[in-house]
């Protein structure tokens, strides 16, 4: 394996890891703060990608598309929480799993009706549409580098929000001791709504920003869902730092296993997860 390949794959792994972090952080927060397992989370990612597709053909500008799409998703998240998810807090895990599974089916079919079932593409904006040369023959798409920078910025923003603001303190408190937060008189309803909407927004944003680099297809929600759950479990439920570390770990395991052991690459991340859980049964970071 030569240096160019290692470099390219490392860049791919970092990019994938950051993207996974955006999706998984929402999932881990919802799980940690509200105790809800949300199998429909992958659908928000898919929704973001399809939003990018539909909006970009309307606005023609990727920036506007992403900002508009993220806003829409956040609002949708708040509405969903108010209408449906708030009923799940008192339910057990099995019911949550099944109910959100049902929601996932509904979202998939709605997408089929509102948009379609075909594979689509989102145009890379002209100013990012070039390739950076690496080594003598290979090049690397500039948009992917740009994507990684943006994801890193969002990740840092999330970190600042969680670790350094009052809201973040409340979220962290909610993740570690729900009932105490309620007793302290903090408006738990709005906190939950905020966390959920944030999670949906992050997932949708990830879907949107990844769309030009990848493609927009029907199965994309399911694919990212399972991997996100692996990340959440490995990182520790409710821990954003854990999600970051786990995302990178899983991304590297996935990317490099596809190069080194392609036939067994599918099982790589699950083996990693099993291994970590045997060492640390509650994930890397306990919340």
């Amino acid at each position, binding site marked *: 394996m*030569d240096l*160019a*390949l290692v470099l*390219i*794959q490392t860049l*791919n792994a970092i990019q994938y890891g950051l993207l996974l972090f955006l999706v998984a952080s929402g999932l881990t927060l919802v799980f940690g703060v509200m105790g809800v397992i949300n199998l429909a989370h992958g659908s928000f990612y898919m929704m973001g990608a399809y939003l990018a597709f539909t909006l970009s053909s309307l606005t023609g500008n990727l920036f506007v598309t992403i900002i508009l799409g993220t806003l829409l998703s956040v609002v949708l998240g708040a509405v969903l929480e108010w209408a449906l998810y708030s009923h799940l807090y008192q339910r057990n895990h099995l019911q949550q799993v099944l109910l959100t599974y049902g929601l996932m089916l509904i979202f998939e079919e709605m997408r*089929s009706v509102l948009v*379609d*079932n*075909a*594979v*689509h*593409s989102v*145009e890379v904006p002209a100013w990012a549409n070039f*390739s950076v*040369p690496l080594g003598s*023959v*290979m*090049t690397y*798409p500039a948009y992917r580098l740009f994507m990684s920078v943006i994801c890193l910025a969002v990740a840092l923003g999330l970190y600042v929000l969680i670790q350094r603001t009052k809201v973040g303190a409340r979220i962290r408190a909610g993740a570690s001791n729900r009932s105490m937060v309620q007793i302290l008189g903090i408006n738990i309803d709005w906190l939950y709504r905020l966390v959920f909407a944030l999670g949906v927004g992050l997932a949708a944003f990830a879907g949107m920003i990844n769309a030009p680099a*990848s*493609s927009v*297809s*029907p*199965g*994309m929600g399911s694919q990212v869902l399972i991997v996100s759950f692996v990340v959440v479990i490995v990182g520790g439920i409710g821990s954003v730092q854990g999600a970051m570390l786990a995302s990178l770990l899983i991304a590297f395991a996935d*990317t490099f296993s*596809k*190069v080194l052991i*392609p*036939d067994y*690459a*599918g099982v790589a991340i699950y083996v990693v997860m099993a291994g970590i859980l045997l060492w640390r049964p509650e994930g890397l970071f306990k919340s």
Partner: protein
Amino acid sequence: MSRPYFYSLVRAAMAVGIAGAAVGATAQPSDPVKIGLMLPGSGTFADLGKGISNGFKLYVSEQGGKLGGRSVEYIALDDESEPSKANENANKLVKRDKVDVLIGTVHSGVAMTIAKVARETNTLLIVPNAGAGEITGAMCAPNIFRSSFSNWQPGYASGLLAAKKHKTAVTISWKYAAGDESVKGFREGFEKGGGKVLKDLSLPFPSTEFQPLLTELATLKPESAYVFVAGAGQVKFVKDYAAAGLKTSIPLYGAFITEGTLAAQGEAASGLMTVLHYADGIKTPKNEQFVAAFNKAYGAAPDVFAVQGYDAAQLYDVGLKAVKGDTKNKAEMIKAMEGAKLESPRGPLSFSKSHNPIQDFYVRVARGNQNVMTDVIVRGLADPSPDCQP
């Protein structure tokens, strides 16, 4: 017993009762010929299923709504491209709905199960897309026909084309039956034209991590490359190939790689040469009439899938006409269909001993949203189907 338990029993009983009523309510008239359309109605292949179905129905409407002198009844079923449900679905059409002919499907895995059911029940089957070689190979049977292609054919034809200009090639494909067969076809065609395939690169289906393979391709420095991936994968591959700067240094060949996805692939696909049994802009009276009629009926241009559906109907009509609509006379129908010489929008179409199409293959160039025909690379190509022992 507890009350909720009792209620759940009642629920089940009601469900059974309703099902029973539904069964009883399916009365079948005896006159029309029943066409079982087992095609994808949802998921990534839904558009292909729709194209096939539209093509089939266009032919029937051109015959005044009749095939072999009998009116037509369609029984459509969404197979969801799910191999795990294929057995049940195929059996539903054959055993419950008692169709006279099965038309299906797009996905090769599902099609193989349909073929198995067709063999077991001796139902006539015309496959309007799935290219799995086994269907007209090891699994061939007198009652199984195909109106589309076998994976080997476009691969072989592509190999012939690539060998005209290049001496070496590397193939990239997903590691599954369709990929393996297509690559094998390419290798045979390329070597026949005097070329040498340096290496076959592959990755597990449906992975889209093409980067390591593209890097390896670049280091091997072949004169050309042949690719077989499908669906979302083909969009990503073409874009990745261009982004890696390989489009200009190593010419890329393929078959279906730009079919139906040119809009999504955009600039990255422009100028790509592909080889297939249909193209945009074939200038025969039959094709021009077909394209016009299709546009008028459905408001969109036809693609290769529509042609395959259209020809499936044509083929069945030949069989039905030969027995004057008497579907019980299977042997005569099959004999007529075997000897059929159809005028298809794709050109002259006949069938080999294994009931696979013998057809011309066109060179196409991607221009805008069309794969425009520029040349014919081979005429009357038949799949040798060595495993078919009728």
